């Protein structure tokens, strides 16, 4: 048994394109999925029971079926409805819908943890309904659940590898092509796995940093709490 990494590393350009697509898909899904989740949580608290039930149904359906099956459903099903989509577009849509459902559940848990008296305090400061939602409910809720959201984002980055099943040339899809070109299966997957590891750890650190940037006041309160607990 002899490792030969040269043929794999000779395909660096292809790997780079795969990495960029993986980053692009993940970034797109995180931004769109988060926006979708915030909209759904807002819709649930602003509109009545029926909207709430619809949101719940969507969340439960997405959370209790595999991402792969959702991807297949969109990729094979949408063309029959006359919606033409490339594999990459279907992948982005599937990732957004999947992440959106998980993020909705996480953010809702954050919103539930906001005490009612906070809302009354907001109203008594003559805030509009929208201002109360944004400043008193949403931002503190996001700050509280940021660690859980971050983990979910990292899981989505890892799950993006499944898009290779519909021949999307992201990092895993690229790996399959390189494997066919070079016949160095194990070496290919070692290289690609290390890249995923670096991407995931970088994303983890970046999200931690971003959380401190976006929620400086709230995280400093948390730090004070931690200090008080330690003392």
């Amino acid at each position, binding site marked *: 048994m002899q490792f030969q990494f040269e043929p794999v590393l000779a395909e660096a350009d292809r790997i780079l394109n795969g990495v960029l697509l993986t980053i692009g898909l993940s970034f797109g899904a995180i931004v769109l999925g988060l926006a979708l989740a915030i909209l759904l949580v807002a819709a649930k608290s602003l509109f009545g029971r029926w909207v709430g039930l619809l949101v719940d149904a969507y969340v439960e359906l997405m*959370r*209790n*079926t*595999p*991402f792969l099956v959702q991807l297949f*459903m969109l990729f094979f099903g949408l063309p029959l409805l006359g919606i033409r989509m490339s594999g990459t577009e279907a992948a982005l849509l599937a990732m957004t819908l999947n992440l959106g459902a998980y993020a909705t559940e996480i953010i809702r848990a954050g919103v539930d943890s906001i005490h009612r008296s906070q809302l009354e305090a907001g109203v008594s400061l003559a805030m509009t309904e929208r201002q109360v939602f944004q400043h008193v409910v949403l931002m503190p809720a996001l700050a509280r659940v940021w660690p859980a959201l971050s983990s979910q984002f990292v899981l989505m980055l890892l799950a993006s590898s499944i898009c290779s099943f519909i021949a999307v040339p992201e990092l895993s899809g690229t790996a399959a092509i390189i494997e066919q070109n070079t016949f160095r299966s194990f070496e290919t997957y070692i290289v690609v796995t290390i890249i995923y590891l670096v991407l995931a750890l970088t994303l983890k650190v970046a999200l931690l940093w971003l959380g401190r940037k976006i929620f400086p006041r709230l995280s400093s309160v948390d730090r004070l709490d931690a200090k008080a607990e330690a003392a």
Partner: protein
Amino acid sequence: MTIFGWPEALFIVRAAGWTLLLTAISFLIGGLLGGVFAILRLSRIKAVRRFAASYILVIQSIPVLMVLFMSYYGLSLVGIELPPFFAASASLAIYVSAYLAEIWRGSIESVPFQQWEASASLAHSPAQTYRHVILPQAIRISLPPTVGFLVQLVKNTSIVSVVGFVELARAGQLVNNATFQPFQVFTLVAALYFCICFPLSRLSRHLEKVMNASRSH
């Protein structure tokens, strides 16, 4: 082109059995391994703690698909030709072990440390402390997240189709290729996954409520 009828539907339903079997086997093996790593992670020896922590961090930071490819191709490279079912359960077990190790470590740590002191004052050895004092409490705490993780595992078994193992997702793909009726086929596939996962999700949530209720008084 065949039409999606009873034989095709039965083929898919039968494949759900393989999904369940794969889940059970990888959960058992992964659970044993995960328990070992949870305890190593809490060891008094720094090097052991570090080793377990790195294992968990690495496995949690790479896609399950890569674990699957590495075990499938890695094993065949060293001359071990395993049937896809074994490669599939082995890689899923590795994935399970890292996540359960972390869930269980958290559960063990959330048993108040005074319990350790109390047990030590009764002249229990560390092994006895684990067995009689810590684990019985930790297992109760860990039950809701463990059942919740089971849902993730059921869903993740779908990716082993890539090494040629015919479980639920692969069966759906095969039938879709033959009939080209993706809505009917994948609705059935999704419905079967949902029937397995939704009760587990509910059970996890229920256990969480019961736990919180019992802790508050």
